[in-house]
């Protein structure tokens, strides 16, 4: 573990006093020529330099954005600086840097907007805090728009629903277009376009991985549970984050989906072409890339002739799937209209539980006391289930259907007031480790409190990024990386498939206890 200053956690949350410039040094690697060109973005000879005529280009792009996104245009105008959002961002709470207050983050762009696009800013810049667009301003934007995980917690509390994520996305896209793209996201997206997933796992490797998984599960429970890939004519296409293929605890979630499908007796398949649920086009605010990534799923669904699409556990992927898939890759008239398009794996599992077709032994999870981390994009930017807020109840109902011991974290840190894990929105990269650790402070604080007060041992999540982020940061807060689990891992533990030996289940239990 590298050496970082770990923020303190408290019994009750404390709003820090501001410390100007505390995180001014935090900047992710800039995408070089290779990745910028793969993305169709401009680049310069030396990475991190701005293209010729960057200023005019930036203002031109801004004008275009303002005419294409109502959110941006309205949000630039209507903020009254009431301060409601100032203490709501996990990055502000964890770093004390005032530019991590949502309104201050928006102001990085708003000050420029006022200077060049409003009467007051053109003629009375000092009065309204309008500033000229300079290279320093761009550097500041690059730094602080990459200290926002687009989690929308601020938007919940804003009296006008101003969503900083919209501003961050617009800013990142404009920055990329003047040569300041972020390396992490711009390295990943071309892999999805070319190979099909964020990891760049080609089809043969995927086949290999899934075969290995099949053997492993069979060894474990003596039932052949299939992990089909590219099987034409299957009823369901499962689109899941590629981390599910190899990372812990993600992979245990994938095993869980497979077991549920097996028990439900449906035919399903994954696709090597759409072997990724994540859509980093959202993070970088680029409609075209987001659409391109979404269209892969349309193509895969058509090629394989499936009737339904189900998404695995992934937060922002579900945001894009739930809210945007219909817009970007629809209409979905060739799929079975009797099911939601797309459907979340939890909706599928919950339905199976409601119909009582799964054989569940809750005691298999008795060695754990669970809590649930609401992933930001699911809590505030989507729905799982039929009613407003069912994105909070559905995962909890599933967890409580397969576990005996459960306790929620503090009320002001869950549901739509949930804190981001600290690694969302395209920040899950090693070059932002300090930010990720500090940004996790509010979530770690509420987790530690239920660990201390209610004996919680594990936190379940339904997002690949949350799972990876917590695996990495839990040790910095004195906990262990295996304390983060997948919700479908819990399902997997508790589900007893037909033909599964009693002993098999027990030995699995013994393994985990050991």
């Amino acid at each position, binding site marked *: 573990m590298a050496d970082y200053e770990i923020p303190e956690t408290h019994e009750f949350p404390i709003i820090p006093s501001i410390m100007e410039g505390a995180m001014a040094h935090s900047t992710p690697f800039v995408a070089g020529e290779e990745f910028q060109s793969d993305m169709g973005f401009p680049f310069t000879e030396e990475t991190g330099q701005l293209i010729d005529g960057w200023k005019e280009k930036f203002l031109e792009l801004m004008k275009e954005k303002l005419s294409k996104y109502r959110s941006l245009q309205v949000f630039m105008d209507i903020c*009254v600086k009431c301060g409601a959002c100032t*203490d709501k961002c996990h990055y502000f709470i964890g770093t004390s840097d005032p530019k991590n207050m949502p309104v201050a983050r928006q102001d990085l762009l708003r000050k420029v907007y006022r200077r060049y696009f409003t009467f*007051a800013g053109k003629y009375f810049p000092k009065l309204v*805090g309008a500033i000229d667009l300079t290279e320093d301003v761009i550097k500041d934007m690059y730094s602080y728009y990459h200290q926002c995980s687009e989690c929308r917690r601020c*938007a919940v509390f*804003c009296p006008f629903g101003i969503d900083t994520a919209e501003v961050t996305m617009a800013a990142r896209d404009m920055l990329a277009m003047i040569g300041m793209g972020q390396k992490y996201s711009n390295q990943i997206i071309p892999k999805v376009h070319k190979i099909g997933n964020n990891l760049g796992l080609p089809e043969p490797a995927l086949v290999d991985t899934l075969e290995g998984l099949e053997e492993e599960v069979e060894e474990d429970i003596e039932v052949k549970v299939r992990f089909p890939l590219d099987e034409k004519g299957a009823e369901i296409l499962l689109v899941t984050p590629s981390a599910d293929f190899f990372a812990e605890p993600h992979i245990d979630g994938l095993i869980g989906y497979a077991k549920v499908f097996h028990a439900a007796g449906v035919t399903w398949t994954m696709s090597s072409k759409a072997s990724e649920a994540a859509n980093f086009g959202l993070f970088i605010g680029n409609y075209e890339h987001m659409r391109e990534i979404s269209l892969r799923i349309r193509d895969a669904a058509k090629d394989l002739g499936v009737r339904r699409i189900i998404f695995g556990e992934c937060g922002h992927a579900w945001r894009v799937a739930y809210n945007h898939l219909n817009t970007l890759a629809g209409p979905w008239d060739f799929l079975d209209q009797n099911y939601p*398009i797309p459907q979340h794996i939890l909706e599928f599992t919950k339905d199976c539980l409601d119909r009582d077709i799964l054989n569940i032994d809750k005691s298999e999870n008795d060695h754990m006391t669970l809590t649930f981390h609401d992933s930001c994009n699911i809590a505030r930017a989507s729905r799982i289930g039929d009613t407003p807020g069912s994105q909070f109840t559905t995962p909890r109902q599933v967890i409580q259907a397969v576990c005996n011991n459960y306790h929620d974290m503090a009320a002001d840190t869950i549901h739509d007031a949930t804190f981001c894990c600290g690694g969302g929105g395209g920040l899950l990269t090693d070059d932002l480790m300090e930010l990720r650790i500090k940004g996790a402070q509010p979530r770690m604080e509420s987790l530690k409190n239920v660990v201390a007060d209610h004996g919680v041992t594990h936190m379940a999540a339904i997002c690949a990024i949350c799972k990876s982020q917590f695996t990495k940061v839990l040790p910095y807060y004195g906990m262990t990386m295996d304390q983060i689990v997948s919700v479908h891992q819990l399902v997997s533990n508790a589900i007893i498939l037909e033909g599964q030996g009693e002993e098999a289940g027990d030995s699995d239990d013994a393994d985990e206890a050991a």
Partner: protein
Amino acid sequence: MSALSILYVILFYVAMITLVAGITNKVLQYKRVPAPLKIAVTPAPLTKTGVVYRFFTEVVLFNSLFRATKWTWIFGFMFHASLLLAFFRHLRYVISPDSFIWPLVNNMVVQSFGHYAGFAMLVGLGGLFARRIFVDRVRYISSASDYLMLLLIMGIAFSGLMMSYVSHTDIVQLKAFVMGLFLFDWQNLPSDTVLLVHLTMVLFLAMIFPVSKLLHAPGLFMSPTRYQIDNPREKRHLSPWGAELEAKDGRNA
């Protein structure tokens, strides 16, 4: 007619035209710009009626602000509620007693509470001003215009109270002046200093409305995170430029 009255007649028309044209222009701009993606902050309503209810809780009760910070809510709510009362109370200078909306103005609530609304308004604004100075986070995000806006409205409230309690103006003549503006039959304006200060500040506020953060009033209703219905899976949402993109490559066919 006095030169002063002529000046204020002109000022009134300029201010009202600026206000109405400015806001109309801004709202039309917001309407013109499409919202390409569904971005409702969830949990969000599933129906139009639900959206109306959501706005009711936001516009009337300041629900989100209440969840965010109690102090700002108290002061903000106090100010806006007083503003509404004061607005209704002022209507009696604008409409005649035989108008059908007269009962809306000439009722107990407006005329009794409204009489004191100015004090509540000052307390609310004072609280908001104090917050801006004393809370380090709010101080950091405030620019000169944020303080001046509060001072301007405080000035309006204060001069209004002065006329109610200290130095009365010729209210009958004032009403004649205002009615004259509507009927294009211009009358003299009483020349009391306090009244002139009050009116000047109000007219200035009206003029800067469309170029200032006061746009939050109409803008609130144009905020996609709040007005959108949560039905993206049931109903396909597509912007004109999104549709153009589709038509170009035909990949959604």
